[in-house]
């Protein structure tokens, strides 16, 4: 493989950010290898259809001080016209007692495919926002958040 000076420099830069474990950079990809129960919850939501990691943004603070109320915003790239709009948006989590967070149903009357809510987070974990387009395809966004004070749901 031919390497230009630019690729070598950017490769070295990302390697050095990996070494700085105390810092996280947005550009670092989050693992899309979900645990079985989260995978099952997503699969149930899509009715077995596949999904792709694109078009969706999930905006949550990377470092959460208080897991009891965490603002979360999902934005989906869509023109929101009659022929091309977002039908459903859902948020799933990895390590709360239940995988579900919220499910939203949108219509073309919404004008903009963006929803926000406040959620609970039991611990440091990944979150997945998934959107169903009017053509039936599913798009996702996976992020990882660090929670310092967990929501009070520590019951076994």
């Amino acid at each position: 493989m031919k390497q230009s000076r630019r690729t070598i420099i950017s490769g070295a830069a990302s390697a050095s950010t990996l070494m700085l474990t105390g810092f996280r950079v947005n550009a670092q990809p989050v693992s899309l290898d979900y645990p079985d129960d989260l995978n099952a919850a997503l699969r149930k939501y899509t009715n077995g259809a596949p999904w792709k990691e694109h078009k969706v943004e999930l905006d949550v603070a990377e470092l959460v001080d208080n897991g009891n109320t965490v603002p979360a915003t999902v934005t989906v790239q869509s023109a929101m016209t009659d022929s091309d709009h977002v039908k459903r948006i859902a948020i799933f989590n990895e390590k709360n007692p239940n995988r579900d967070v919220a499910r939203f149903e949108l219509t073309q009357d919404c004008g903009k495919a963006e929803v926000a809510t406040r959620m609970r987070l039991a611990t440091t974990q990944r979150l997945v926002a998934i959107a169903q387009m009017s053509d039936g395809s599913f798009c996702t966004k996976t992020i990882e958040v660090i929670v310092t004070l967990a929501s009070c749901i520590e019951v076994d």
Partner: protein
Amino acid sequence: MASAIINMKRTAAAGEVLLIKALVAHPMETGLRPGADGKVLPTDLIRTFTCTFETAEKKSTVFSANLYAAIAANPYISFYFKASKSGKLTFTWVGDNGFNQSENVSLTVA
């Protein structure tokens, strides 16, 4: 009666996309959390939220949501609505123990 707040513009230009913020007072008890006496408090959640838009000609659902235990107490939901004509927006929260709360907002499109 719990209190609910709807924050949005009451007047809009035709075609304007409005941000609607909806907040309702509710504990969203998960059913996993022990109370002061050490016993687990029973589940008490808001399960659904619906926004409908009604004009003289028709009534349609604009936006709806299913909420779960991972939604924080006093559920806050914001979404957008494209104003096309004047009408009435109705916001309804339905939950456990017969919880049912509605708010109406009249929207004037100039």
